[in-house]
């Protein structure tokens, strides 16, 4: 669905954001794009969305070259940026005007999503709170039926209930024709939502695995055993002993802690990736 080959991009000549990035995004997945600040997560989303052009390399989104920004492409790819704009008009009018550009727009879906988020139907959009504006755009993004949804820090500014609602609507939105990419620092908010983790750092993909593969190869558990802790890929102290990431030699099931996984990849990326390049234990 999205294919990125040898992507080179820089805002300033001497400081490249990407130098040879390769990535393939497949339909039917919700990707969690993780990484430190300034490592290119938003740049990657804007490149896929056609708002930034590669200096070298190629991006292909469903047969389109994003930089051409053809209407048919823009109808199929929706970017919800972290900083967004909503015009000074009421919700009904805004939906009426903007939905006209999206032939597959589903008004009923928008209405249901808006009701789920308890969006106010009166008042001007630009006068809503940041969180309410974001929820409005999330509902709109879903209703466009775009095949590729690019969401940059979508849970920032959402209250606890809305974060739950966000997870619910996103989980229901993914299908075999759609791919959702969520760039976030709020890993905990999305832990149960994303099914593939992509960690980006220094313009490279450090880690890119499905949650199933992570569960299969890594074991997340608490331990009081000092020897086990010493041999862990990653460990951190907690009230209930040491939280560990271990190679999953026994094929035991555990629930991946993505925050810990992220730290493990940042500290011992090579070792973690090595485990995924080995043959399956199961």
């Amino acid at each position, binding site marked *: 669905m999205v294919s990125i080959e040898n992507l080179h991009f820089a805002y300033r000549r001497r400081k490249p954001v990407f130098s040879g990035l390769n990535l393939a995004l497949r339909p039917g997945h919700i990707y969690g794009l993780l990484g430190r600040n300034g490592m290119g997560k938003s740049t990657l989303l804007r490149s896929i969305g*056609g*708002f930034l052009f590669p200096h070298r390399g190629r991006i292909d989104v469903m047969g389109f070259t994003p930089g051409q920004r053809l*209407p048919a492409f823009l109808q199929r790819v929706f970017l919800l940026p972290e900083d*967004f*704009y909503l015009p*000074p008009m009421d919700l009904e009018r805004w939906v009426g005007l*903007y939905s006209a550009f999206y032939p597959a727009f589903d008004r009923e879906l928008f209405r249901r999503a808006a009701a789920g988020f308890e969006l106010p139907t009166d008042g001007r959009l630009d006068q809503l709170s940041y969180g309410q504006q974001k929820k409005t755009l999330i509902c709109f993004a879903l209703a466009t039926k775009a095949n590729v949804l690019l969401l940059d820090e979508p849970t920032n500014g959402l209250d606890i209930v809305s974060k739950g609602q966000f997870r619910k609507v996103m989980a229901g939105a993914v299908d075999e024709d759609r791919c959702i990419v969520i760039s976030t620092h709020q890993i905990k908010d999305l832990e149960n939502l994303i099914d593939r983790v992509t960690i980006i750092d220094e313009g490279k993909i450090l880690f890119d695995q499905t949650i199933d593969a992570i569960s299969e190869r890594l074991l997340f558990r608490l331990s009081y055993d000092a020897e086990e802790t010493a041999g862990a890929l990653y460990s951190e102290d907690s009230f209930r002993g040491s939280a560990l990431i271990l190679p999953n030699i026994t094929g035991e099931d555990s629930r991946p802690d993505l925050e810990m996984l992220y730290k493990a990849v940042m500290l011992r990326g090579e070792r973690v990736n090595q485990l995924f390049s080995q043959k399956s234990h199961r």
Partner: protein
Amino acid sequence: MKQGSHTNAHFSFPRFRHLVALHWSGNKRLYLLALPAIGGLLAAWDTFLLVMDRYSPLDDGIQAFTYYWGMALIGCLYSSTIFAAFGSKAQGIAWLGLPASALEKLLCGILFSAILCFAGYTLVFYVVDIPMVKIGNELIAAQHRVWSNGYPIGPNPIWDLRKGLPGDNPDHSFHLFLIFYFMVQAVFALGSVYFNRYAFVKTVIAVLLFLLVFLVFEKQVVEWMVPRGWHRYNLANDWIADGDTLHARSVRLPPWITAPWAILLLLGIPTVFWVATYLRIKEKQV
């Protein structure tokens, strides 16, 4: 799905219509407030002339002056904001991400900044001008005004913009002015895409710099290429030899060359700038 299979990739009338509706809906409050504000400024200016001119206020010359300068100023100011969305990343993404082509977005900008701005300003100008000229004429009649040589001052006609500048000067016919307006508008529209902030001021500076370079080129390079003693007489097409003596000779290209050339230049420049604006929109990154 391959992109080559898409029809209407560059222009679709329904999409253009949606774009126009969207622009109008987002800006109508501003536009509907701007029109009476412009009318108020024109009325204030006309009132000033009525008070200050003790002879023949609001003659057709001052009406034309008011129209042209007001039009140029408002057109430039407005055009320099027509693509102001690029000034902010959030608005830029919203605007560029809207599923319409760059051509449709450009045409929507031209429709509002060149055509509707011209129509709206002209309407407001006459809504103010007609009653103000009438008041001026009533003042002339009531006060039995006379020129300094004793001749009575007659009523002023409403200036007809279709006749261009007063005096039936064929070089200043209306259609040429209109194209000149498009030219200026196109330059400022490009400025609004090119400069993210302070587009109006930066475009003015860019235009002035261009004029400076043009004048230096005219004076230093072109004059260097013509025979000794010949000078450019004006910026149109007149050349003069021995201009300081009684034996001056003036040379001018025949109208069959200059007239099409003028039209071509006046039509070509806005086209070039609109094309440049289109390309700039296409290559814009946010």
